């Protein structure tokens, strides 16, 4: 009869358990295999065949190691929710803010001559347009990270649109509150201006981020299909 303890211990090398837990798991799984083996032998099956059949209880020891670690509360460095949502979400938020600062600092505004353009609107529009143009790249990066971690489409697109939530909160909550407490804001903010603000800081950036994410996912799917076809 095989040494089931030794066999299981060998298969579980590298599992993230402390020594006591490892010894318990090895003994328990080995006991299960041994019992399966004994029962098969009692049915008159040859030893070799019984070993083979007992081993069919585990298709992949690698998968079993991961399942046991996970079921015993050993999460990887980043758990699923962090790697699929929070990390890409905060990274895209951070990068979108950095992009906005960079565009404001070094973007087209500095190179536009006030004499040849609208004195107020054009430089701001140019800054805005440059920022929005950069967002698809950031959205694509977020989608790549979330998708690589196995995030479903819903989570991927939630993560990459995360940067617009602070703006959304400002427009939907901050502005009405400001209108209540500041007469200047209340007098200066008309409905069309509210719509323009909402479109400029929420809708357009969200669309730009989603466009980048969508393109990346579409491209990844296509190249995946080509790889399978190639194989």
């Amino acid at each position: 009869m095989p040494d089931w303890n030794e066999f299981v211990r060998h298969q579980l090398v590298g599992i993230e358990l402390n020594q006591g837990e490892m010894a318990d798991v090895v003994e328990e799984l080995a006991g299960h295999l041994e019992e399966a083996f004994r029962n098969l032998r009692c049915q008159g099956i040859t030893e070799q065949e019984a070993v083979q059949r007992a081993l069919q209880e585990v298709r992949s020891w690698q998968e079993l190691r991961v399942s046991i670690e996970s079921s015993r509360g050993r999460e990887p460095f980043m758990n699923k929710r962090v790697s699929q949502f929070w990390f890409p979400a905060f990274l895209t938020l951070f990068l979108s803010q950095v992009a906005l600062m960079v565009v404001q600092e070094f973007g087209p505004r500095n190179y536009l001559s006030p004499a040849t353009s609208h004195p107020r609107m054009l430089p701001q529009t140019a800054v805005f347009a440059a920022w929005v143009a950069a967002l698809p790249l950031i959205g694509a990066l977020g989608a790549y990270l979330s998708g690589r971690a196995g995030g479903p489409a819903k989570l991927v697109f939630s993560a990459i649109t995360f940067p617009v939530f602070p703006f959304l909160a400002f427009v939907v909550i901050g502005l009405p509150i400001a209108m209540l407490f500041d007469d200047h804001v209340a007098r200066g903010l008309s409905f069309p201006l509210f719509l323009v603000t909402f479109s400029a800081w929420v809708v357009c950036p969200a669309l730009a981020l989603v466009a980048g994410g969508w393109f990346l996912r579409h491209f990844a799917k296509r190249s995946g299909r080509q790889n399978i076809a190639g194989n």
Partner: protein
Amino acid sequence: MIASGIKRGTAELAVLSVLENGSRHGYEIARRIEQQTNGSLGFTLAALYPMLYRLEMQKLIRGSWETGPNGRRRRCYRLTAEGKRKLSPLRKEWSRLFVALRKLAGVVNA
């Protein structure tokens, strides 16, 4: 045999139900489920133990070492009070699902 996707959802109910009648060790749980379902539900080692550990982490079952007739130590699991409390709503939930499926797809007559 039932497809593994469907089986995965029923696993918790199956294990808790088997343990309702007393403590059992892993191999015994798997065999008992297989026998009571005429082989429709079967659990391999790879499917069973991660689930047992998860249920234990959730404090629905508790394992303790006992010595078997062949002198080998084996870990026996029993339902905790929390596990017993969970079993009844879980049964009702599955029962509702089967009623809904019956209405939707005529599962019983399939």
